[in-house]
């Protein structure tokens, strides 16, 4: 008995020592939470490609603070429940910070978990206004906010001279927020809202909704939901022979939209978005696009994956500048000291709420070949 106890103790001590050493000299773990499966899988998989590539580059240059960087990715499935689980998993794996995710409702489900664990979270595709209005100390985002998006959307709607507008959202945090915000702005400008309702995401047949919208006779339709439904709407609108112009929010910005709708049905669709990877003007972006294309054989398709890359880069910069991976030092640096960091998507600084400062939404249009063309 005594012998067994002693052997066990010895093992425990050795184990603890080994573990302790590993903690100090092992790699710095950075979490990546994204929709690797589910309806938004194309976003999540590309996020992983981008962050993996950047981590490789950092490690090739010797890592951070003398330690290698290891990316630990978890799948949130584009679903709030799965996201909460994924967040718990990353917290228990002792990551120093988390990048992600895509989709405001998904981010919202994980925000408090990270905040309570004092792990900084840098979201890449979550533009709902209220995410940064909660006073969470460790939440940041590299994407802009929906009040700005609504402003650009309302300007576009007015400039096109639309007098009667239909707004369709999908009841997610992001889509509902953008729809409400835009409604308030365009109504002030004298545009009549003839239709305002939500669809159920994940279905295939939206003809009932389109028929009802058509009866309201709008000059244009503003859809604030995501690309899988956006593609179906465009396709079914075309099949109904209804030529009304469609405008989308930045969640329709994914090449899968054209794949689902067909180029013919998607032609003329206008959407709001931060500039796409191919239109990024910075030298950092050009170099990044080149190495991404070299590694994966194609350029990144979505801006959100590049924004995830920016999340990774500011994090590394903050760790290097503050010479620490401690939450409070990194957070403090991101909030107050980082000024005009040369990001892939332009200059980056964060305000006290954790929102990105500056940066403007652009209007894009789909051409006859199904390509996204930046509108002047």
């Amino acid at each position: 008995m005594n012998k067994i106890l002693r052997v066990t103790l010895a093992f425990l001590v050795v184990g603890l020592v080994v573990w302790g050493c590993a903690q100090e000299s092992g790699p710095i773990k950075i979490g990546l939470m994204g929709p690797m499966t589910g309806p938004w899988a194309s976003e999540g998989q590309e996020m992983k490609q981008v962050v993996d590539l950047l981590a490789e580059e950092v490690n090739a240059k010797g890592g951070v603070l003398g330690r290698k960087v290891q990316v630990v990715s978890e799948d949130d499935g584009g679903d709030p429940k799965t996201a909460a689980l994924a967040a718990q998993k990353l917290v228990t794996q002792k990551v120093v910070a988390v990048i992600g995710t895509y989709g405001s409702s998904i981010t919202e489900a994980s925000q408090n978990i990270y905040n309570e664990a004092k792990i900084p979270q840098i979201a890449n595709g979550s533009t709902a206004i209220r995410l940064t209005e909660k006073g969470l100390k460790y939440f940041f985002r590299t994407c802009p906010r929906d009040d700005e998006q609504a402003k650009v959307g309302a300007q576009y709607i007015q400039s096109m001279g639309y007098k009667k507008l239909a707004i369709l959202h999908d009841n997610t945090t992001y889509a509902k927020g953008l729809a409400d915000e835009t409604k308030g702005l365009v109504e002030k400008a004298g545009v009549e809202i003839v239709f305002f309702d939500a669809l159920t995401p994940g279905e295939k047949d939206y003809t009932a909704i389109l028929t009802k919208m058509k009866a309201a006779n709008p000059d244009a339709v503003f859809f604030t939901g995501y690309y899988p439904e956006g593609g179906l709407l465009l396709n079914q609108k075309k099949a109904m022979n209804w030529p009304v112009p469609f405008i989308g929010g930045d969640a329709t910005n994914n090449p899968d939209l054209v794949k689902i709708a067909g180029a013919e049905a998607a032609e003329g669709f206008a959407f709001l978005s931060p500039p796409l990877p191919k239109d990024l003007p910075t030298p950092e972006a050009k170099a990044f696009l080149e190495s991404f294309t070299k590694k994966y054989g194609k350029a990144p398709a979505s801006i959100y994956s590049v924004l995830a890359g920016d999340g990774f880069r500011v994090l590394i910069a903050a760790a290097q500048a503050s010479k620490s991976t401690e939450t409070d030092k990194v957070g403090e640096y991101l909030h107050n000291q980082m000024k005009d960091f040369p990001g892939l998507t332009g200059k980056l600084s964060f305000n006290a709420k954790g929102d990105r400062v500056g940066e403007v939404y652009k209007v894009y249009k789909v051409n006859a070949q199904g390509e996204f063309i930046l509108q002047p």
Partner: protein
Amino acid sequence: MEVFLQQLTNGLAVGSIYALIALGYTMVYGVLKLINFAHGDLFTIGSYLGLTLLTSLALTGRLGALAGILCLALMVMGLVALIGALLERTAYRPLRQSPRLSAVVSALGASIFLQNAVMLIYGARFQVYPHDILPKMPLDLFGLYIPLVKVLVLVAALVMMMALYLFIQKTKLGTAIRAAAIDQGAARLMGIDVDRVILIVFLIGPALGGVAGLMVGLLYGQINFTMGWVYGLKAFTAAILGGIGNIPGAMVGGILLGVIEALGAAYLSIAWKDAIAFCVLIGILIVRPTGLLGERVAEKV
């Protein structure tokens, strides 16, 4: 009036797909008193197999659009029926004598297995049917725009449902299925091979579910590995609405559910569409607990 008719046709097209899937639920329940939760995933498999066969064999190019689609549909039906029979053999038959709950758990497990299998084979991203297989021109009936594909789907679904109804009512095998549904023990005593009947049910149900998957692919173009869940749930609801275990009930229930959804969205609220449909379901079940066409069956002792 025009909007009403347009919405009615929208609802009919959606409802006929619900009805086709609901038939699979109701047939299995009728004979085995088991809810086959994996049925929605057989539907998904149908749409994926349809896509693979369509793009790899290029049938529509060789045989022309209609004959190609018909040939494709038969192939999909055959393959999904095989998978259905295999499912019965591996997931349900070993549990035939166990408590009913074990079979339900097995069905749930099979559902998760099939869904993940599809994801691993085809990937998690959306797959898209080619956009140019069927002529896109809409029929213009008195100012109503109805895409030709929709009419074809509706007609095909109705023809298949009629054929199934006649098969069950008029043929010897159909009689055997009905007999096994009423009382398996007595059917066995009358010399009916009940295991064979169950196998046939697991060939027909999945075949119809699979062809519904193909129709969804052709109609909407976009398929993904989780879509079986939403359609499965709706079809299951439709089967209950019509009276589970009752074949005409599943057809009526499916089409009714589609129409209620479309009209609810049109005249009440789109966001409340599902709530409206389920309220109607609850209302009907309060008045008729066995569903619209279900018969009251004495509890077996």
